[in-house]
């Protein structure tokens, strides 16, 4: 008897142990880090990207530029986020980048990343999110009266449910996308695309951008920086 009870207990215990483990969905993942040997090199002394730090407001290291300063590569944009600003940008703002093959190729790639998910690869408003009815009512480019200036303005500030893309793209990249949108609009309307301007060297292109910024800059007043869309929510 003693023996059979023992056997039974052992069997019961082993069943218990086996039944505790085993989740049919579990991959080999763990919510804890493994042991680190001398972790000093993992927990940096200097501030790392996205680190928490007491010297920052709210302990957040990712901060906006201090008011009145300009971060590298960023230029103030002097059209306001109003109906008047939109109309003015649409009429006056011109694409400073030449219509070259390189600019258009880059614009197409960027369009594929940021825009095509809603606007569709052809700009007909039939992106993947629209087809799955997650985002609705995205217009086709030929159904709207748009200019390169208004395209840039909308990318910068967003319009209605479209958000601002100023945080994800640079000035140059937005203008490259504007070129591509312009080309798509011409395709949709059945018009011929623009002729490519022969490639200019990087230096000349930089110079053209600079000229544009000088033009832009002289009309910028102090409050222009306030119009920059922030990168953390608004």
């Amino acid at each position: 008897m003693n023996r059979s009870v023992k056997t039974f207990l052992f069997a019961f215990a082993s069943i218990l142990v086996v039944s505790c483990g085993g989740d049919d969905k579990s991959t080999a993942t763990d919510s804890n880090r493994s042991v680190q040997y001398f972790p000093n090199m993992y927990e940096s002394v200097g501030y790392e990207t996205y680190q928490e730090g007491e010297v920052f407001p709210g302990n957040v290291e990712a901060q906006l530029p201090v008011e009145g300063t300009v971060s590298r590569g960023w230029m103030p944009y002097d059209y306001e986020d109003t109906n008047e600003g939109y109309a003015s940008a649409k009429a006056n703002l011109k694409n400073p980048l030449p219509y070259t093959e390189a600019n258009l190729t880059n614009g197409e790639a960027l369009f594929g990343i940021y825009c095509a998910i809603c606007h569709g690869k052809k700009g007909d408003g039939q992106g993947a999110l629209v087809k799955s009815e997650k985002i609705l009512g995205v217009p086709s480019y030929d159904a709207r009266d748009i200019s390169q200036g208004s395209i840039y303005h909308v990318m910068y500030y967003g319009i209605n449910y479209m958000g601002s893309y100023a945080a994800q793209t640079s000035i140059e990249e937005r203008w490259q996308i504007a070129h591509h949108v312009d080309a798509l609009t011409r395709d949709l309307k059945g018009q011929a695309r623009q002729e490519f301007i022969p490639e200019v060297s990087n230096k000349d292109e930089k110079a053209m951008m600079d000229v544009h910024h000088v033009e832009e800059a002289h009309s910028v007043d102090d409050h222009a920086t306030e119009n920059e869309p922030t990168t953390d929510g608004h």
Partner: protein
Amino acid sequence: MINRKLHFSAWQFMLAFVFVTLCSISVYGQDATTSDGEPAAPVEATSGGDAALGEALFKANCASCHKLYKKAVGPALFQVSQRHDREWLYSWIKNSAALIATGDAEAVAIYNEYNQSNMNAFPQLSNTDIDNIIAYTDTEKPVAASTTVDKSSSSVPSDSSVSNNIILGALAVVLLLLVVLLIVVNKTLKRFAEANGIQTEFEKEERTPIWKAFVQNQFLVLVTSVFLLLASAYFAYGALMSVGVDQGYAPVQPIHYSHRIHAGSNQIDCKYCHSSARESKHSGIPSLNVCMNCHKSIGEVADATYQEGIDEYGIDYNKEIQKLYAATGWDSDEQKFVGEESPVRWVRIHNLPDLAYFNHAQHVTAGKIACQTCHGPVEEMEVMYQYSPLTMGWCINCHRETNVDLQGNGYYEQIHKELSEARGGRQLTIADLGGLECGKCHY
């Protein structure tokens, strides 16, 4: 007699087993039927016009700014025909700006109420089109359908956990019963044996205890110690090699963000959110304004997605979106950023020690390496985890084996020309470009 008793218990056991299996099958069957959910009730038109045609027009033209039952960029359009005159609606939809310009009091009031945002003119819509749209906007919210879905969804997890508990409890009871039965049977058998004068305890032979026999057998001792040493060396090696390697690390994040939904079924490009991977050392955790690009208008997931989240992962996706709204201070009823912002404390997964330098732009933009090469099938990950070991051996291996994609890659044009002359035109690996130099990553 003894035989009968034994038979009896075995028969009882069978009965209990069958009962339990039947129970579990029926319970699981129930689960399957409840989780299917009910299809939404058909939408019916209440007034003239074709609501089905109107729905298509609404989705194509109006839905970018209007929702039916909720304020969006523009007002909620449910029963808009009861708030405004039909003729007024025609002229407003066809050209709202012109109507405002005439100084129409109703038009100006709406224009000002919604922050003077211009509604696009829709001259292409005919009066019949607009009638159809209005017929669609007059349809009642399918209340019954949505509440049943909600109900079943909220009750399913508790149901399944309850039924699981019931099954486990029943099993425990059955096991206990069996134990008691065994003891009782054993006792009765013994009593019978004693009554009939049968000797139950067999005489014990004189045997050496097993451990003594083991110690006396030197060969066995040797084999066992060798085995133990090897086993401990194996485990010690494994433990030491995993020091500082976080492969499979999947922390719980403050907001349950599903890469499976966003990068998988929605096909959003990795670089849409991780935009700085194109041009920076870091791939960048998207700031919340990037989330709000879409989630301003997506405040709730589709019913099927919601159900999937509850059933498969135990996650209420809608609550997770609400966490995003709380962090950005977005008021979805007012469609405005009103509240306090609070940063989200994402838990970092991939972390290289300071002694190693890694640059995303170098790999993503110059090298044209797909994100999945290192990060694995992210588009299938419900919970993000570290796919690669991120050890030096792993880096070096890839640098040795990966051929540089030189085709149409201006970055390598010059290097390629020089190196292919030196190496007789064979394919170049990163190692040929100096990818094994210590100073490339350690400096």
